[in-house]
């Protein structure tokens, strides 16, 4: 009787709506459901920098310029990339006698906001006004301060007057704001703009989008639904609707994929590499799983104020004692290649001649002997003063990949007589206090996310060492101070000649490898779990998300 009642109840519930209504039917054509692990805190392009926001916005709008899948700078909203050669960029002398530049962009003639208003130079001027206003909460205000003025040439053409001329003079990924919607909100109270922006108060306003899609529904913390934007001038995208669902737990994310509640897991914000490898073993036949190493640089920052690590011989011994190829192969099936410098091999400025450190434990032992760590007791080296060769290794607690790597490193270093104590902390404490205030005493394992040809000013220049005196500003957490490195960074930024710049980059990489303020580990890869019917998605490997080319994705169902 009880079983009968249960069966009846079940049938009633399950029959009530049918599978399509609850999203169990994975075969609905012309809709794509993407699973990601983070919800954007805002959709305003200028406020906060979050990968989830970039992922969604790339479908609804386009930056002025961007790096494409082949890492070439291209126009997205503009019609022609300004260069010194084509005359759209010209050096100019500023009022104070310094050298500046004038860079002219023409907005695509068909670019139109979703409500029918054209995208114009007025939007560029307004974006600059918002971006440079100190009270709007724009995170990267310095980029806007570099723009001294915006000159309107005509409705679709404007010139940025910049306070200097650097090699990246035309790489302005400016994200235009719709002045016809946002200006009144901004001018009413700039300090309250971040709370009043239509991107958050009316996210489904079509006037906020000019890309292939527009937002039609947003449920904070849950999902964002996008529909085709009729004013998009480019290729017609394959899907009528796209739903971006946020499932923060990666195990639940996998279960949702398997149950058909989502069609794919975004590589940018999805499962970790070890989860993807395990998933591939079990379900590889049903999905296309691809791995793209990119600009996420996993490394060990060494605290050079530690007397042990201040000795370059010890730093070299540390890297020579590590079999990083074995780590990459055994833990990540070779999907995350070994890093030899902070410059990605995919970047055009990467120098393949940079010295590398293969696994040579005997050479490591010799260097440690040379550095005075000769006496071995209980397998650990000591110096003449009787001090143990002990280092602390820290990373973010709960990050399974990093914790696995830590254990392997610990055992490899132990082989050459270096004792390593692991002390991990929650990410909140690790990044909020320990790393930023240089409270790690030995090595800190974490990653940097950069862009193509990103000069390491904030991480390697001497004046970027955080301290109480500079209110813990800067990201040179190792405390690396090297006059040649400072000069190289300064020279690279203003060198416009590509071959000359490449030579400077080569010297920078060589110096980095020689001085070893950081032990490079590997380039993290994004794992894309896609249905077999989805084609045209090309991972970039840099910070530009795959959704910047959403119109190239094809539905093969």
């Amino acid at each position, binding site marked *: 009787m009880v079983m009968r009642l249960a069966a009846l109840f079940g049938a009633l519930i399950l029959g009530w709506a049918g599978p399509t209504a609850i999203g*169990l039917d994975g075969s609905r054509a012309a809709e794509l459901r993407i699973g990601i692990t983070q919800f954007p805190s805002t959709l305003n392009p200028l406020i906060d920098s979050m990968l989830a926001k970039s992922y969604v916005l790339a479908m609804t709008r386009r930056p002025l310029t961007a790096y494409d899948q082949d890492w070439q700078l291209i126009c997205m909203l503009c019609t022609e990339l300004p260069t010194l050669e084509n005359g759209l960029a010209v050096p100019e002398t500023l009022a104070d006698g310094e050298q500046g530049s004038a860079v002219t962009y023409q907005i695509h003639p068909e670019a139109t906001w979703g409500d029918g208003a054209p995208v114009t130079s007025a939007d560029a001027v307004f974006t600059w006004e918002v971006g440079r206003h100190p009270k709007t909460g724009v995170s990267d205000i310095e980029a806007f301060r570099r723009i001294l003025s915006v000159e309107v040439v005509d409705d679709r053409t404007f010139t940025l007057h910049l306070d200097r001329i650097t090699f990246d003079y035309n790489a302005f990924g400016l994200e235009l704001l719709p002045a016809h919607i946002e200006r009144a909100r901004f001018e009413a109270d700039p300090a309250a703009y971040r709370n009043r922006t239509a991107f958050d108060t009316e996210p489904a306003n079509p006037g906020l989008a000019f890309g292939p899609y527009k937002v039609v529904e947003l449920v904070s913390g849950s999902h964002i639904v996008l529909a085709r934007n009729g004013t998009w001038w480019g290729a017609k995208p394959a899907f009528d609707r796209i739903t971006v669902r*946020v499932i923060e737990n990666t195990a639940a994310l996998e279960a949702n994929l398997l149950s058909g509640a989502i069609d794919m897991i975004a590589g940018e914000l999805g499962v970790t590499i070890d989860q993807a490898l395990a998933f591939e073993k079990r379900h590889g036949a049903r999905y296309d799983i691809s791995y793209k190493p990119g600009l996420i640089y996993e490394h060990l920052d060494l605290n050079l104020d530690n007397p042990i690590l201040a000795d370059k011989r010890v730093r070299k011994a540390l890297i020579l004692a590590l079999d990083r190829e074995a780590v990459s192969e055994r833990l990540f099936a070779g999907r995350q290649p070994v890093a030899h410098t902070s410059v990605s091999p995919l970047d055009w400025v990467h120098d393949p001649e940079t010295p590398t450190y293969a696994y040579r434990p005997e050479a490591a032992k010799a260097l440690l002997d040379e550095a005075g760590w000769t006496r071995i007791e209980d397998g650990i080296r000591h110096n003449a003063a009787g001090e143990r060769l002990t280092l602390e290794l820290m990373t973010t607690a709960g990050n399974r990949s990093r914790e696995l790597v830590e254990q392997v490193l610990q055992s490899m270093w132990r082989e050459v007589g270096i004792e390593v104590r692991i002390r991990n902390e929650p990410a909140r404490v690790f990044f909020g206090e320990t790393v930023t205030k240089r409270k790690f005493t030995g090595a800190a394992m974490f990653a940097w996310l950069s862009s193509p040809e990103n000069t390491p000013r904030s*991480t390697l220049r001497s004046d970027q060492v955080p301290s109480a005196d500079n209110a813990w*500003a800067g990201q040179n957490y190792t405390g690396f101070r090297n006059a040649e490195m400072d000069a190289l960074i300064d020279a690279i930024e203003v060198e416009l000649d590509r071959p000359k710049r490449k030579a400077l980059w080569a010297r920078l990489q060589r110096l980095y490898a020689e001085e070893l303020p950081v032990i490079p580990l590997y380039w993290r890869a994004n794992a894309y779990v896609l249905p077999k019917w989805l084609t045209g998605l090309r991972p970039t490997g840099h910070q530009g998300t795959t959704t910047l080319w959403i119109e190239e994705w094809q539905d093969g169902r």
Partner: protein
Amino acid sequence: MLTYVAQRLTESALVLLIMSFVVYGLIGLMPGDPIDIMVSSDPNMTPQDAARLRALYGLDRPIVERYLNWLGAALQGDFGYSRLHARPVLEVLLPRLGNTVLLMGLAFLLAFALALPAGVYAALRPRGVGDTAINLFAFAGISLPPFWLAILLIILFAVALGWLPAGGMAPSGAGLGVQVQYLLLPIATLTLATIGGILRFVRAATMEALRQDYVRTARAKGLSERQVVFGHVLRNAMIPVVTILALNFGALFSGALITETMFGYLGMGKAIYDAILGNDFNLALIGLLLATLTTLLANLAADLCYTWLDPRISFR
């Protein structure tokens, strides 16, 4: 009685005030601030950017000054904006509060409705087959980690059988049937996770009541077992059970973090957790104060219940 209730409500207001300061202080004392987190993920942010944003968000001011500013605004009904959601705090919290009350309330009622008869049955037949089976079930419920239970249920009902959605919220405008489908697995997880504790408590309280003199007297008077259990045992056994239920009632409003995370359910638990980690002071504070308030009110209600359950108890 009215004097007692008024006194308790005044005490509750004082506790809330103290809690607001403690919670604000604890969040403020956590290492780092939202700007540190932004800096660590964005190498392009300059020290000047960081300083400007700290000033903009008021993070450069002493914590007591920030608290007093917040309190002044809150007393005027302005609970501020959520930094993580870019919307007014109440606009973020109220829908989640509704979701949590629905999820936790149904799970709580179901757990209680199942635990009560099962606990009494087990107490009446200690060490019998039924008692052993019920105890086994209770301990399994207590021992199983909710995240693992959730994954098992998802794999079985969403992946293998394809009967229910693996998680998320019902689409806006969905019918009752669809909403029930989305709720079934989270409710099942929460019910199984909480039923064990309540069941063991009911069983222990009932066994204790069964040993009392008044039960022997009732039986000696020739009352049937049903009359003894429902008329005397259950009523007395309920007093400690009501205390436990009242303490658990606060969870109705503070949410179930693990279950909400596993099922992508938009409830209070996840909102408060994210707010604390993301230094969203306004959201975390109001969320935690709501949980505190409901716990205090539930305990007041429990105290009032005692007089109904046991007329010997009175308020002075």
